[in-house]
């Protein structure tokens, strides 16, 4: 009899455990339309992280890597509801409202294009629901005094700062500092913002800008621009270009026999495997900032397992974008877990108290801590260099897997 009661009790307890209500999070990305691939990749990154948190599996050495749901919430599972904004700010706004009012999500996460984050963050503010921006890089997003906005990713100013910090370090190390740069950038929001920050930081560092070239994105030829780069003869060429333009640029350089001492790219096209495959040896030695280092396994032991799980879903390795998206969900889930509640106000309080060391994630960052604007101040980017056809992390030293190859001043 006693045994029966105990068994019934155990069953009841098990039942209660399994019934811990799902934590519903709304994820808004451009799943169709003209940047659909980035949205689909983001979706797979999110699903990978949700599976890591929810499912039973061999423990992964990172925060919430043990599986089996959120430990402080009775093993509650993360459930993601995806919405498609088609890269349109108006649609992003409508979808955010729909997720909040119809699906009763406890938090929002997104959204790749900065313009869509602009409207999602406004909706979140009005409905008082936390919005975690995982991969939007426009600095203006965290400069509007919003109180429900959080961003784990570095923004463009932080990204560019890393390049100039690297220039200073390598100059001191080798005795061959950067004296001049040439800027070349495409004409949309990405290129405009990136070059604007670079111009200011070059001036502040006393580095001369010998060329300042804006080109129409996806133009059929960059021969004229590249000829001007050659004439300028700067120490470092700094492109802000998407994949097609990056390929075009290196081929044009090759055609006129121009090899700049160094290329330091603002991510995007220069960190795309398609680019390396297309230009092959021409890309050797090119550098780019990144916020992810796939090869930093010595200091971030979770990378191989997480990457294998992502690869099984997406058929490719984690990259700069997908890693940030994945970690964004990890940070949000951790905040909900620490809050022990799905009330938006409690989640916000927990997000504000976030203090995760970098080694508890797959990112090469110092960690995750939000300032009063919701910006993660510990998200220091890394510099990667293409060596032997592969991206190798060369800076900062604590996560580097290779030594920089530095030809400036030779």
């Amino acid at each position, binding site marked *: 009899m006693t045994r029966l009661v105990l068994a019934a009790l155990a069953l009841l307890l098990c039942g209660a455990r399994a019934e811990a209500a799902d934590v519903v999070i709304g994820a808004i990305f451009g*799943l*169709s*339309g003209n940047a*659909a691939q980035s*949205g*689909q990749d983001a*979706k797979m990154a999110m699903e990978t992280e949700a599976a890591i948190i929810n499912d039973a599996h061999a423990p992964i050495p990172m925060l919430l890597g043990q599986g089996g749901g959120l430990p402080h919430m009775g093993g509650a599972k993360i459930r993601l509801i*995806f*919405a*498609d904004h*088609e*890269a*349109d*700010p*108006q*649609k992003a*706004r*409508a*979808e955010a*409202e*729909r997720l909040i*009012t*119809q699906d009763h999500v406890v938090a929002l996460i997104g959204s790749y294009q*900065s*313009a869509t984050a*602009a*409207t999602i963050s*406004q909706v979140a*503010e*009005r*409905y008082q629901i936390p919005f975690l921006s995982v991969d939007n890089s*426009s600095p*203006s997003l965290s400069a*509007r005094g919003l109180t429900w906005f959080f961003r784990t990713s570095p923004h463009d100013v932080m990204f560019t700062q890393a390049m100039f910090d690297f220039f200073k370090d390598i100059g001191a190390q080798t005795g061959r500092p950067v004296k001049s740069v040439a800027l070349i950038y495409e*004409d*949309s*929001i990405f290129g*405009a*913002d990136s070059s604007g920050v670079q111009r200011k930081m070059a001036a502040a560092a006393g580095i001369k800008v010998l060329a300042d070239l804006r080109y129409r994105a996806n133009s059929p030829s960059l021969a004229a621009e590249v000829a001007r780069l050659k004439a300028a003869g700067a120490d470092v060429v700094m492109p802000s270009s998407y994949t097609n333009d990056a390929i075009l640029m290196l081929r044009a350089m090759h055609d006129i026999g121009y090899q700049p001492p160094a290329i330091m790219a603002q991510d995007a096209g220069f960190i795309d495997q398609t680019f390396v495959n297309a230009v092959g040896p021409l890309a050797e030695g090119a550098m780019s900032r990144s916020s992810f280092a796939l090869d930093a396994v010595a200091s971030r032991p979770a990378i191989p397992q997480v990457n294998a799980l992502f690869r099984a879903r997406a058929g490719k390795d984690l990259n700069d974008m997908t890693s940030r998206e994945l970690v964004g969900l990890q940070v949000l889930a951790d905040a909900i877990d620490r809050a022990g509640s799905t009330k938006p106000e409690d989640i916000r309080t927990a997000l504000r108290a976030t203090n995760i060391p970098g080694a508890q994630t797959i990112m090469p960052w110092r960690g995750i801590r939000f300032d009063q604007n919701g910006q993660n101040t510990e998200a220091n980017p890394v510099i990667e260099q293409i060596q032997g056809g592969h991206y190798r992390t060369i800076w900062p030293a604590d996560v580097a897997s290779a030594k920089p190859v530095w030809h400036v001043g030779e």
Partner: protein
Amino acid sequence: MLRRRRRRLLAGGVALLLLALLPLPIGDVYTLNLLILTLLYVGLSQAWNILGGYCGQISLGHALYFGAGAYVSTLLYLHLGLPPSLGLFAGGLVAAVLALAVGWPCFRLSGHYYAIATIVVAVIFYLLALNADFLGGASGVYIPFKGDSWVALQFRTSKLPFVYLALAYAALVWLLAWIMEGTRAGFYWRAVKDDPIAARSLAVRVLPSKLVAAGLSGFATGVGGAIYAQYVGYIDPDSVLAMPLSILIALPAVLGGVGTLWGPLLGAALLIPLSELSRSYLGGSGHGVDLMLYGGLIMLVALWRPEGLLGLFARRGGAGTHAGTA
């Protein structure tokens, strides 16, 4: 003729009343959002219809007037504190002036050449805005929220005010089209559309009547842009000045029936919910099913009812209800 016009006005009044009652039982924010967008596009498409439908000057650059209204009202609010409830008229005026400025040289082109010229001008302004720092450049402009207000046209989460604002907008543009149908200018427009040379031989002043249509159309489109900006709270060149928007503005009128009073309403009532619902409930799949549906529908209408969906009713109801025959 007069009786028919009066009957149409009466029908318009009934439609307005029904539409005004429609949102009351709806508590759901998403559905109200759908209604707002649909009504906004009813107005925008009717505005396009004045120039593109009645006057027959196919413009594929109306995003320019929409964007002008959005930017002017927003910047006046942010920099000079002019409330958007007034700013939308300023936006409309600037858009009208732009429409006249575009029309003056371009109306000398005919047919396809005019349509191409409108695309080119709109793209030029899109690129200029992308690179203009005082317009926020590619980063766009945020409209900060300062509390519920009819003066500033801002409402935290309630949707009803915008439903009625959009309804008033759609109704007024409809009324404008109704009025113009009965004026001398309205008859000139239809004459110009049918055959500009024959019209001129009958002493129709072709260029001035085109300019009147352009000015009115531009004004109404600009006001719509200003309402959109207040509704969404954020504008950037890609969302208020880009080429796809020009198509979206023209599409409901083309689908519903060009140069008719009810075409834009019918087209928008079908297109906008279809595109929004299919995105929300099918778009997440990532297979682009929503876009295929959308494109497929347009192709079907183009093949079977090139004169627009209103043609369906005209055939069944006999001649006379179809304004194109007027």
